């Protein structure tokens, strides 16, 4: 006897077994806990029943298999039909998410719930702040397990947009805390870029991440450059802040050569035959582009040659591709 069979609460339900199709893919007899619960869920769904016991049943199934998205969807429908308080559901989901790090269905479910909840708090700043705080606390717990969890970061961007958290000091602070723990966390860098350059207070609406935005204040560009530059000194071979610096310069409409002096701190290329000193291949790459911008073709080519032959040989073909247009310039 299972958990449901013979249970008076479920007496009226005739479970529907899994139909795996015919022939070689035919159904087989299995009687474990999961199969029994799924049989009852199929019956409940066929009858379109939305009742409190559906919440118990789906919770039980999710505890065994959080990846079955139909179960989540049916649970969301039931919650809506019953008008169940959403905060209770959120705190239950926190536990499930912490136990199922790779699961993504749960994040979509969470978005559905927040969308449902939002209209009732949209005119109450204190309620929005409270929700933002509790969600941030939960996400911080998730990041303690895996600070690069893509689903959590995607959800976080959704939440920032939904609740308008671009100017929330806690939001930027939390990203800085994550970077302090792991300066190589590319997800945190990416989120920072989103927070800073999609801020509706001063950015152009729908400005693409790859394009110049004339509305970004100089002070913001300077602040972001300083932040990322400091990070490169901490770990010169960390590609994230180098990419970030390029992105900031692009947003601010500045040339790479405007921070040439900074990149030069990592690279010494003597004019004579003495050996060069390169503390970061990313700096060398950066300088090559800056020099190329300024028309210092030979210097740029020298840097790219060093990358191809010495500092990043695994990508020799890429560096040679970068050299090709320089050769054209010198031959003209």
């Amino acid at each position, binding site marked *: 006897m299972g958990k449901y069979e013979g249970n008076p609460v479920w007496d009226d339900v005739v479970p529907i077994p899994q139909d795996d199709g015919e022939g070689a893919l035919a159904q*087989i007899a299995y009687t474990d806990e999961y199969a029994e619960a799924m049989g009852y869920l199929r019956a409940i769904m066929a009858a379109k029943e939305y009742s409190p016991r559906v919440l118990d049943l789906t919770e039980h199934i999710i505890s065994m298999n959080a*990846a079955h998205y139909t179960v989540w969807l049916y649970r969301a429908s039931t919650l809506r039909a019953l008008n169940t308080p959403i905060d209770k559901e959120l705190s239950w989901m926190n536990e499930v998410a912490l136990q199922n790090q790779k699961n993504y269905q749960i994040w979509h479910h969470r978005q559905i719930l927040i969308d449902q909840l939002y209209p009732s708090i949209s005119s109450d700043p204190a309620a929005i702040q409270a929700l933002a705080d509790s969600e941030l606390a939960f996400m911080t717990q998730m990041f303690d397990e895996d600070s690069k969890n893509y689903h959590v*970061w*995607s959800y976080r*961007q959704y939440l920032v947009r939904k609740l308008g958290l671009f100017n929330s000091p806690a939001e930027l602070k939390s990203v800085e805390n994550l970077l302090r723990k792991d300066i190589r966390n590319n997800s945190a860098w990416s989120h920072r870029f989103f927070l800073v350059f999609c801020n509706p207070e001063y950015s152009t609406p729908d400005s693409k*991440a*790859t394009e110049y935005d004339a509305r970004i204040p100089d002070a913001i560009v300077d602040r972001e450059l300083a932040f990322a530059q400091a990070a490169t000194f901490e770990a010169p071979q960390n590609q994230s802040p180098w990419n*970030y610096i390029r992105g900031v310069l692009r947003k601010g409409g500045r040339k790479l050569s405007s921070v040439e002096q900074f990149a030069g701190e990592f690279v010494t290329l003597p004019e004579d035959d003495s050996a060069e000193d390169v503390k970061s291949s990313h700096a060398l790459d950066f300088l090559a582009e800056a020099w190329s911008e300024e028309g210092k073709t030979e210097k740029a080519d020298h840097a790219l040659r060093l990358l191809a032959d010495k500092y990043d040989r695994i990508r020799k073909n890429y560096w040679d591709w970068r050299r090709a247009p320089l050769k054209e310039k010198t031959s003209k």
Partner: protein
Amino acid sequence: MSLVSGPGRAGLSTASLPTELRLSVAAHVKYIQALDNRKDELEYHLTTHLRLNGVYWGLTALHLLGHPDALDRSQVIDFVLQCQGENGGFGAAPGHDPHLLSTVSAVQVLVMCEGLGELEARGKNGGGALGVGRYLAGLQDRKTGTFRGDEWGEEDTRFLYAAMNALSLLGLLHLIDVEKAVAYIVSCANFDGGYGVSPGAESHAGQIFACLAALSIAGRLEVVDQGKLGRWLSERQVERGGLNGRPEKLEDVCYSWWVASSLKMIGKLHWIQGEKLTKFILECQDTEQGGFADRPGDMVDVFHTVFGLAGLSLLGYPGLEEVDAVYCMPRKVIEQVLGPREEIPIE
């Protein structure tokens, strides 16, 4: 198709092999054929929601291995058609709600089995390809160009690619607003040259594959900053030869496909070292019991098996059927349906 992992572990028996690693074709064929006999394992039932995707992964792997007939054609077609719902979409297994991703797997499997005729004869929602196409087209948000995975509205650049993949195979791309879809992809481009799941989301190799493949199908690759993207993609190769999906993450066999196929689509596969990658992929196979794992020493599964093989095929590993970088299906199957394939030449 069962998604049960194991029984083998990758790379444990390679110590006895000569330095020149070889692909264990027979073991992999047997491994895939045996997947469906493992219904007594709990994991089989925990992965029901991916069953139809699993059939696509297994069948594609068999095609690439040169054994397209290793699964019974009529059984496969019967199973696929049993997964179709009244609205024309396919669920992951019989009785499951239709979802965009399983619908695309269904179309891909039917195309590989030359089973579109059976779909015409036995399909639902008005029958045939058009019934499926209408379901897929109905998932597009006409305002944003994106696709929902199902009636619940979760959006993802993967869905956009998947829908365009299936609709183009069915010759029904005109049912959707391709220009809007392209504009949405453009809005997902990031400052580092990559693409994420939505505008502003971190660059991720899997999403890059989806965006590039969708743009390839739309014939709009020119909207990509190919040099900058190729640079980001080539940075995914780690010292050991494998590829990761994001900076500072571990290498994984499935990225042999997402990254390498993306590079191939923009004519820059030579920006990574093919020999090193080939060696890494081969180290991830279980040479005796078959199958590939994400990394040497881990449990094998059918997902990593197909993407390992597709990666090897892309790199020109001898004896494998050539894979199409956009569809992750045998190139000759795609050419039968769509005609000769154009490629961006290597610069």
